[in-house]
């Protein structure tokens, strides 16, 4: 990719960039469609229901039908809303969500961009979605939307700090911010993956990641029972679909990032299993994380807003800083 950027930009090259983008977009949209379907199915089974089973065989076309419904729905913009920002916010939320996917390496050779500071790129861009959520909440000119947007911003800022500090341990162990090298350096036995040596960092990362995704038990920004729907109360039709899409694309991104950082990326858990292609291992671990997110959504209640802030600042932040300190001591005493 880098080599093409240096070349003269011919129509052929531009087409190539465009096609790769479209392919990734198609994969992501397919993932989102079926992630929503499986989420409903899995939660249904866990709650002793059947889940969607009417549209298409085994209900497989349920999400497709839902998306079609959203797309042909009337698009309403409140009269007193700030029209420009109201229209801008969903797009501004989605663009960074899609852009962060560029640095995720799937296997040794299958990746889009091999940036030196891949991890930093991810963290930096995902912060922009927060602006979009606040703007969407503010532009709606609705008190529930504004409250939801405020909560969301407070939550995402508070949990971004432990999220970033919890991966510092991984960065110190691998000595790079490049996601491909981080995944590459983890060994072929499963205890050589980062989640065992960095178990504190891993736990903090997972909790903070769930919170960054605004998912249960941390889905306060859209707490239906208190805020109607949070920052997207006033949105309908395809603008609402964009916010939903953003949320699920971040599920994809976080699941892939966790796999790469802590679960060894494309490595097999045992050296004698390396004949299975790396992409299969990546997908297995990735699917497990996605399932794990659905699982905790089905089983955990929502926490209160003061508990949320307390957990972020008083528990996760000190623990993640302690993790950095312990990693530094370990590296100094036993590695150097």
């Amino acid at each position, binding site marked *: 990719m880098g080599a*093409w*950027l*240096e*070349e*003269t*930009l011919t129509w052929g*090259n531009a087409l190539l*960039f465009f096609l790769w983008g479209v392919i990734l977009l198609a994969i992501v949209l397919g993932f989102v469609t079926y992630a929503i379907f499986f989420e409903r199915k899995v939660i249904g089974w866990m709650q002793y229901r059947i889940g969607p089973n009417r549209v298409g065989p085994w209900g497989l076309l349920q999400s497709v039908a839902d998306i079609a419904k959203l797309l042909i729905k009337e698009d309403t913009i409140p009269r007193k809303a*700030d029209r*420009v*920002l109201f229209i*801008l916010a969903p797009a501004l939320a989605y663009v960074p969500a899609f852009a962060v996917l560029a640095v995720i390496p799937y296997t040794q050779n299958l990746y889009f961009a091999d*940036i*030196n*500071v891949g991890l*930093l*790129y991810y*963290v*930096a*861009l995902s*912060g*922009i979605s*927060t*602006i979009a959520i*606040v*703007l969407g909440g*503010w532009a709606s000119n609705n008190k529930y939307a*504004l409250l939801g947007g*405020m909560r969301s*911003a407070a939550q995402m*800022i508070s949990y971004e700090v432990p999220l970033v500090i919890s991966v510092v341990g991984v960065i110190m162990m691998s000595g*790079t*911010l490049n996601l491909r090298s981080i995944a590459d350096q983890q060994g072929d036995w499963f205890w050589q993956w980062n989640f065992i040596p960095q178990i504190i960092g891993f736990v903090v990362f997972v909790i903070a990641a769930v919170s960054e995704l605004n998912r249960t038990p941390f889905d306060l920004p859209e707490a239906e029972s208190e805020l109607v729907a949070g920052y997207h109360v006033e949105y309908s039709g395809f603008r609402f679909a964009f916010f939903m899409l953003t949320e699920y694309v971040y599920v994809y991104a976080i699941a892939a990032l966790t796999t790469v950082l802590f679960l060894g990326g494309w490595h097999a858990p045992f050296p004698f299993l390396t004949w299975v292609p790396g992409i299969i291992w990546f997908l297995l671990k990735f699917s497990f994380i996605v399932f794990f997110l659905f699982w905790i959504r089905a089983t955990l209640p929502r926490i209160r807003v003061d508990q949320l802030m307390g957990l972020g600042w008083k528990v996760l932040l000190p623990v993640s800083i302690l993790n950095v300190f312990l990693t530094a001591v370990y590296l100094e005493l036993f590695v150097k």
Partner: protein
Amino acid sequence: MFNFNFSGEFVAFFVFAVMIISGAVLMVSFAKVVHMVVSLAAVFIGVAGMFVLLEAEFLAFVQVLIYAGAVSILMIFGIMMTKHQEADAEQAKPLHETLTAIGALALFGILFYAIRQSDFPEPEQALAQGTDNTMEIGKLLFTQYVIPFELVSVLLTVAFIGAIVLAKKEAE
């Protein structure tokens, strides 16, 4: 002058340049404060893009993280907490405006002259293409610039404690 190489880098430069300039112009001309902050954020992102083109990736994404992310959200928060009403159009003051225009033009002239006049010395040993500049920044920060670095961290800690003290006083 116009025999440039039409590469992807060149196109990206123009996209970012347009983003910076239009963001800056809109920032000045918008009436609503929230709109101004959004266009300011666009400028920050454009500048980060320029850093990427200059192969300073670390600087670029820190710019996005701190300015486009944290600073913009802070400003939006601050604005939302206050009343948001469009400022009434002020009465035109011809003399004032003329003086401002002269001042702005003079400032532009000085800056432009200074930029044209100064020569940028080549660093003694330039970084080889493709070195990990994050690592190099880290090394410099903890060797040559360790005292300024520590001073900045002390300053930030002081500001942090000051903010807590102010917030505490207000809560009581």
